[in-house]
């Protein structure tokens, strides 16, 4: 499953990061802010309306990600 599919308050561990074909640089960017295999993530809240963007705790940092960005991070519970 991906980070975007996690429900509010749920924790998971990063498995891998991929990028949409039109923005391959996102892999490096997401890794740079901490989305690396083995890292702990937790969804803190969703924006309104539509649950976009998300606020995510990754390691010891908090980031706001658009749903499409969070979808690039594969996680396991």
């Amino acid at each position, binding site marked *: 499953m991906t980070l975007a599919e996690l429900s509010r308050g749920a924790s998971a561990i990063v498995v891998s990061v991929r990028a949409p074909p039109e923005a391959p640089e996102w892999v490096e960017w997401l890794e740079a802010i901490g989305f690396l295999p083995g890292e702990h993530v937790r969804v803190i809240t969703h924006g309104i309306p539509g649950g976009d*963007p998300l*606020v995510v705790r990754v390691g010891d940092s908090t980031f706001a990600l658009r749903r499409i960005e969070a979808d690039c991070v594969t996680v396991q519970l």
Partner: protein
Amino acid sequence: MKTTVAPLNFQRRGALLALVGNPNAGKTALFNQLTGARQKVANYAGVTVERKEGATALPSGRQIRVLDLPGAYALNPRSEDERITADVLFGRAHGEKRPDVVLCVVDASNLRRHLRLVLAVKRLGLPVVVALNMVDRAAARGRAVDATRLAELLGVPVLPTVAIRGEGMAALREQLDDSALWDGPIHAAHVGASAAPVQSADHETVQRILEQLGLDTLMPETPSDRIDRVVLHPLAGPAILALVLFLVFQAVFAWAEWPMSLIEAGTAWLAAGVRTLVPAGLLQSLLADGVIAGLGGVIVFLPQIVILFFFILVLEESGYLPRGAFLLDRVMGGVGLSGRAFIPLLSSFACAIPGIMAARTIPQSRDRWVTIMVAPLMTCSARLPVYTLLIGAFIPAHELGLGIGLQGLVLFGLYLAGIVGGVAVAWLLHRFTTVRTPRTLMMELPAYHWPSAQSILLGLWQRVQIFLARVGGIILTLTILLWFLATFPAPPEGATGPAIEHSFAGMLGRALTVVFEPIGFNWQISLALVPGMAAREVTVSALATVYALQVTDEAAAETLQPILAADWSLPTALSLLAWFVFAPQCLSTLATVRRETGGMTGPALMAAYLFALAYLASFITYRTALALGG
């Protein structure tokens, strides 16, 4: 791979220390501590990334230059800011010297992420010193870091600091004074083949270091998390944001009123003084109508700028600004604006100048550019005198019931037209200029902390300097030019009518009638629009001059109203109102855009599109009103 061109040798000499760190590591606070007020703020060559340089003397008397590089998460750049940081560190930035020593600023309570950048910087081959910043906060959360052990593990000096309070600075200065740092051999930067495996390897290295320090567990819930539960709450969050915005808006308008009227009174007093001291003639006119009026017209914006930037700096330093951007991201994103555009656009209701300057808080250059382009469509306070004059003269004071007057309704409609116009322009730009790649957010929400008075004051001082020095210079020059156009040539002997009619401005106004006639403007309006380029409200006093009134600015509107009501048709008045919703002719705004976008393309494009919009709106208004029997 592209070969690196050796940078030209016009860089300044002297030992150079560069500060590098993740955003929100407290890098700027540390820079302020190191250099005090001895800072120069400019832009990097060719880009609009802010460049901050300072100087300091180390304990031995060694003089060094200190460069505060833009915050970066990694050395594989994601934004223009990060590219500058990488380019300077690799020694390939145009006109910048490669630093001799790098000071890495890391947040002691977030080593997990910050240490990866230290590892990347270490690979550059430059001498590295690490400032382990915010050790107090880490300790308060039960995660005290053993700096000595960390230094052993990293193989570089590590010094604990609390930059915001100046703690640990003396020891840091001693460490930076070490001759071995400055005189050692410099190794060439080796550029990694691919960044991705390096990130993972670094992540594992950091994990091992954290294990050895006994810090490999995640932080328990922090005070920031508890604040965020309220501030980011789906219902409470937007309510708090609305309250904050209301307060800022109110302050910019209300608090600035008193100092602004003082400045206006001071300008008038100074001009009157010049008129009594200097004999009537060209010199008097140049000083009173050109220089003093021009400078006064610039400085009068200063209170609004200071108040606005005070709030922006407090919101930014405390960590609230990105939260506000998060809450508004979806709404603003719908028309292709960044969530962070809310502050610049809101400020533009006071004046587009601070609004455009505030667009600096938007990191993505495209989003920033769109925000700057639509900012002048938010109805600034300088348009109010024109609206008041025309509404008073042409719109009857009907009561529509429920305490709503027709005049008030028209005024509201004009504000609304500006907002709708701004949204439409942003949407069109979004629709037709966005490359079909998804836009990124990936925005850090840093831990909350109290802003430091020193940072706020320094930040304010830098904004004031930029405004007065750069913008003020351009505006003063243009005002004097306009004075020249409105004064020369002098009317011939025995000429009747106001002198401005015979000047270049008068000729220009008459020539412009050809352009403006289709939208219903007579030659008096066309002429008044010329000096109105200095500032929109000047149009009112210019109209008074053209209608040969010898009255002060305040009385101008009242005396003018009956004259205009008799002289102009209703379609003409409505057309002029529509014109002012989009009116491009504020030179101060264009000068600010030129400074903030670093070239003439921005202001030229803005003037052109606003002119086209204003003309179109006026044309439609005028023709519709005529057709309806005006």
